[in-house]
């Protein structure tokens, strides 16, 4: 029995040893697991002055990241207000001796003021030197938003509102845009695969649905007398409605079927003679429909002619006619090139087209002249008068600006056939993608993500762009001088 006693007594001793062990090792076991700490700084002291000693960089435009150095900025960005040129800047962060804000738009004067301590009794510090504010052409956002999950609905609403639910949204399909020839404050938009006709109304800054009975609307144009709107539909059957006519008199709420054909990618009206041209994707047919005859005596829904074919079957293209009516650009959407068809004023139709820029099936991105340039899905374009050409007394006064959908850019085609990139693909340092959502300088910063529809307001000298994947309507214009126009 003795051995048993020995054993159990030994156990007690083990117990005591354990206490010793645990005490010794407890210290090691209690390791703290604190994670990385971001720089902390002193809170704002209202008894001390706010000093602005310097800022960086010294110049820039709207949205420029600006760092302001000084003292006593506190550590709560909500408590800090920065005014540049009298405009309030967005303050991202403040850390005692430095703060980070974004230069507001229209900060033309460039004087910098830092107010710390709330609206009522702020302590103000001012910079000795002014920020050199640069006014320039910029990309901005007119309307729409995309939430992080990307599940916002198609909705009518205002361009912009603090309450997102009151904002217009949707726009995630390829669009086509056309200004109303009578009211330059009305911009009409359709979206492929969306059944609506949308009106962007600059008078009251809203976007509303005017019709919702389409099946794949692809283009909008107006008749020569500006009294009728024509919307082309892209449908599969030979006897499906391809072009529809709505009258201004009835507020575009009526409907007349102009033509029946299959797979129409768009229709345009000749700006001088008034006949309508449209196409078919099926075999690349180029169709002419004499609207004048339609209005003066009538023309059957299938009584269109086919002067020529473009290349091969399954050729998606649009016909966009020069304002003088001298020629049309044929934008081959799905094959990445643009052709030109000259107008035959005698026969009142277009001649066989020829290549202007890009290569057949040669989708890519390259600025250049003629076939050395590469484009990828030119989607819509507008002719814009160039004052330089007017001054130089050139025969053709218009540049052609078009959305290059897969290149996420707005490209420019001169009458001589040179293709350059007008806007987009900026912020090279952000990441290696050419797409994204960035506003600001056209080439330095701005990014688009599959821009599709484009329209030009001669009144404002501004472009409007349906930026598909960003789900927004973007705008390109010289920065405003005042705040009368919010956008």
């Amino acid at each position, binding site marked *: 029995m003795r051995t048993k006693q020995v054993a159990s007594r*030994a156990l007690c001793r083990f117990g005591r040893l354990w206490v010793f062990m645990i005490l010794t090792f407890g210290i090691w076991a209690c390791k703290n697991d604190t994670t990385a700490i*971001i720089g902390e700084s002193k809170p704002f002291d209202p008894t001390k002055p706010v000093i602005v000693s310097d800022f*960086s960089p010294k110049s820039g435009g*709207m949205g420029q990241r600006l*760092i302001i150095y000084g003292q006593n900025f506190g550590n709560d960005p909500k408590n800090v207000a920065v005014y540049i040129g009298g405009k309030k800047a967005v303050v991202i962060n403040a850390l005692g001796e430095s703060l980070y804000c974004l230069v507001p738009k229209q900060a033309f004067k460039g004087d910098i003021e830092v107010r710390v301590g709330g609206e009522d009794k702020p302590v103000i510090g001012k910079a000795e030197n002014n920020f050199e504010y640069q006014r320039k052409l910029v990309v901005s956002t007119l309307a729409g938003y995309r939430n992080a999950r990307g599940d916002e609905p198609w909705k009518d609403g205002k361009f912009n509102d603090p309450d997102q639910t009151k904002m217009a949204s949707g726009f995630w399909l390829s669009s086509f845009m056309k200004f109303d020839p009578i009211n330059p404050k009305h911009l009409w938009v359709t979206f492929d695969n969306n059944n609506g006709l949308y009106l962007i109304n600059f008078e009251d800054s809203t976007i509303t649905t005017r019709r919702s009975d389409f099946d794949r609307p692809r283009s909008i144009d107006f008749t020569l007398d500006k009294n009728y709107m024509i919307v082309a539909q892209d449908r599969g059957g030979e006897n499906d409605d391809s072009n529809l006519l709505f009258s201004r008199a009835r507020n575009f709420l009526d409907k007349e079927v102009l033509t029946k054909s299959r797979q129409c990618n768009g229709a345009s009206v000749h700006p001088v003679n008034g006949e309508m041209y449209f196409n078919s994707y099926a075999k690349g047919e180029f169709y002419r429909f004499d609207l004048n005859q339609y209005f003066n005596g009538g023309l059957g829904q299938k009584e269109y002619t086919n002067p020529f074919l473009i290349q091969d079957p399954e050729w998606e293209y649009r016909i966009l006619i020069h304002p003088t009516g001298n020629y049309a650009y044929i934008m081959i959407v799905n094959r990445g090139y643009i052709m030109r068809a000259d107008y035959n004023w005698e026969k009142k139709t277009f001649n066989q087209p020829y290549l202007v820029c890009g290569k057949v099936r040669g989708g890519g991105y390259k600025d250049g002249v003629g076939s050395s340039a590469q484009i990828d899905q030119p989607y819509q374009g507008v002719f814009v008068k160039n004052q330089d050409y007017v001054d130089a007394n050139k025969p053709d006064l218009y540049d052609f600006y078009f959305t290059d959908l897969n290149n996420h850019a707005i490209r420019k085609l001169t009458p001589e056939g040179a293709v350059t990139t007008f806007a987009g693909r900026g912020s090279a340092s952000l990441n290696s993608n050419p797409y994204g959502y960035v506003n600001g300088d056209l080439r330095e910063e701005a990014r688009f993500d599959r821009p599709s529809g484009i329209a030009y307001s001669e009144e404002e000298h501004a472009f409007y762009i349906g930026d598909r994947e960003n789900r927004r309507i973007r705008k390109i214009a010289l920065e405003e001088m005042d705040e009368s126009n919010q956008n």
Partner: protein
Amino acid sequence: MINKILLTCLLLLCVSFGVSAQDMLEVTGAVVDAKSTPIIGVSISIKDSPGLGTTTDNKGNFKIKVARYKTLVFSSVGYVKQEVLVKDNRSVNVTLKESESSVLEEVVVTGTGTQRKLTSTAATSSVDLSTMTKNPTSSISNALIGNAPGVLGMMQSGQPGKNITEFWIRGISTFGGGASALVLVDNIERDINDINIEDIETINILKDAAVTAIYGSKGANGVVLITTKRGKDGKISINFKDEHIYNTRTITPEFEDGVTYANLLNEARITRNFEPIYQPEELEILRLGLDPDLYPNVNWKDLLLKDGAMTYRANLNMTGGGATARYFLSGSYINEGGMYKTDETLRNDYNTNANYKRYNYRLNTDINVTKSTVLKIGVSGSLNKRNSPGLGDDDFWGVLFGYSPIRTPVLYSNGYVPAIGTGNQTNPWVVATQTGYNENWQNKIQTNISIEQNFDFITKGLRFRGIIGYDTNNDNNIYRRKWPEQWRAERARDENGNLIFTHISDPQELYQASSSGGDRREFYDMMFNYDRSIGNHNIGAVARFTRDALVRTVDLGDDIKNGIAKRNQGLAGRLTYNWKSRYIADFNFGYNGSENFAPGRQYGFFPAVSAAWNIGEEPFVKENISWMNMLKIRYSWGRVGNDQLANDVRFPYLSTIGEIANNGYQWADYGFDRYFTALRYTQVASPNVTWEMATKKNLGFDVALFKDKIIANLDFFNEARTGIYMARNYLPIMVGLGSVPSANVGAVKSSGFDGRLEYKQKLGEVNLTARSNITYSKNEITEIDEENNVYGYQNQKGYRVDQAKGLIALGLFKDYDDIRNSPEQTFGTYQPGDIKYKDINGDGVIDDGDRVAIGATRRPNLIYGVGLSASWKSLDFSVHFQGAGKSTFFTYGKTVYAFSEGEWGQIMKGVMGDNRWISADISGDPSTEDPNASYPRLSYGANPNNFRESTFWLKNGQYIRLKTLDIGYTLPKALTNRIKTNSIRIFLTGSNLLTWSKFKLWDPELATPRGEDYPLPKSLTLGINVNL
């Protein structure tokens, strides 16, 4: 702690105690040593009465009740055991002699039984167990390197449960199949990494053919023979060991911080004519920390890795018994803590840390069935569990090395979880803690029953041993995974200063999956031993028959081959003769079969002959050179096989017939279906394939001088490996084979030496022992199936197995003139500051034809260890250094080749050395355009000119480290005796405390070229060893 007490109780309960009340006599007495000093704590037990006993007190006195005609056994560590028969004497005084061990008495364990070291003709080395037990990891393989001559190896990883060492006996001699040694635990092939170190009695490394020939087709890579402890008769002896180990890491890679990273990134872009990624004001925002959402600066390493982790190890074993039965019983537990930090909020739910736990038990029982028959039963088992984060350990390290400090914050300020992309390009904190966890557990049960019969009654010296047994093993993986919803913020804010998010991945709720594997091994082993001395003639003979089958039992799939056991059987024998232990001759053979080869080619004969001359036993030496205790010269020659095939191929002699897709014929008339696809040999048979054959030669010297003060062994070896199994990739096309057959065509020769030197000295009361060992091995491919190359230096033949090959870097290009005046480099564009290579073949062009052998191999070809131990009274101290040499390796990967994967990849501190090449346009200083700079011109993205195997990226893997430092204190006997214990030792052990190496980025032993692996541990152990 509770489970540890429970464990103790359980083990104690297992032992039953019995006392018989007989005619009792109280015996008193004293125990003294030769100098009449009383010995404290001498264990006194009654023979054949297990459990009864006492110990001497502080004055060496004892008192015990004992029946008449019983024998008292006096034993104490360091003294020779003494037995006294009790008749009527009530007083027994005993003088114990100090035990002296002599080399001449030492034995060596081999496959044919134990043998006196004196008469052994073979090259074997036994591992010093006292150093082994100081190893702080769960696997004993980690303690082999630098501890035993003849073993080369390197540790694979520092991760608990994966921290094992891959080792090769006398290096690598093959490039075909496996090069790993055969490990036998109690004569059965078993895993070395699952054994509890405290259970081991001996470890012997069998190196030459004289001892490995009997293993026939499995012995060519050497054999590790492990025997476990068995019960000893006498009073129960309980041994308890408890260790707390604090682990840190030898070298943890450090990374550059965000500001440095961003500047280097910009430099890499600008210097290659790209626009910079960060604008000056962005760098400023980053430096000031003004926007932690878009310009974070995260130290992922500190966020993910703890400074250290604890390992706990406890071991309890007891042994005892009597003449009729003896037992050895042990249980152990190890809990190795991982280095990963865990998420506090999830800590109660599950553990994502890389922890490893293992329970081991062993019960070895020996029963004397009759006077000449012993039945031995051994049962042991282990259960281990290992945890890892949901995405796995590899991704953990891959992401940690990949995700730059400025990529994203840990969490966005609105609580969104960031990621750059999907899969493993996600944020490291998510990989480490938010993706669930995996559990791997393995369970092994090993059983062997052996019977030993002494046939002395038939003829003297004849013995028989038979073993049967089986092992089962199962391996289970349980994956419990989930995924958070993830976002990426564009590095630009909208006009209102808000972040713009892109949705990267949807959340995945916790789900589970599992997989498992398992196998079973059955074996028989029968052996007859015959030893007889007739006058001065000593003869011995052994005959042994073995059979073993290993079969996969779980997850067999649909391939029938998977379910067929891998079987081997063989007959082995040995004949020895020596005359007065002076002249020794030995013949060994194995006749082995493996079912993996074609009938008729399954059996092979593996002979070995060896001889030794014990000069030390010669009378003229004994008489004239008294300080020479032992001098032996031995030589062996033999042939051994290796049947491990590359890719674990089964039945290479069988062909496989398969369908040719989309190639058939419709034989039927129209309207009927008789379509047959064509068939072909998808794998042609290789009917003549068999094992590779090693011809081994060994010349050895064993010396013991000055009463064993100096002991030395030195072995020179030479091996020719022929018939290495390999695919015949270069048969002419006109042979017309659609698939590649295999054959035994390769050959490798290797040679080297290993040895050890031990020196013992007593200085006053200080006992000093110095030990050292060294192993060097060099191999050369003498035959390999390869295409003949225009340049001989490009052949593999004539070089080491896995020889590093690459270009020779001459520095960096100085300027464009230098480029124009140098041979053209064809790998890609290059500029001043890029690597310039040597035109080896002089053809004016640098291409792959200029690759030559550079350096050695990744595996070290030289391993050595030096140790010193000292003891003074109750203090003991030991130190052990270990080193490796002749090792070179290429480094590459995203952290070595800076920005080679764009922004994916951190920049390791020190990777660029002292001075990198910087264009004067950037630095403003022409002196930074240094053609001898330690790092070439930075680049962004792929740079095939710089980032390729060359001497520029070749690193020297040699190192020497303070492997073990151990200080122990044994409590005075007087004290331990008072609390009824035999001995208590408290010890502090440091492991891998210091490492000296030319390569400093990560541990030079870690077998990764990218550094992306769990670093090796550096640890400090505090432990106690109690013997009752």
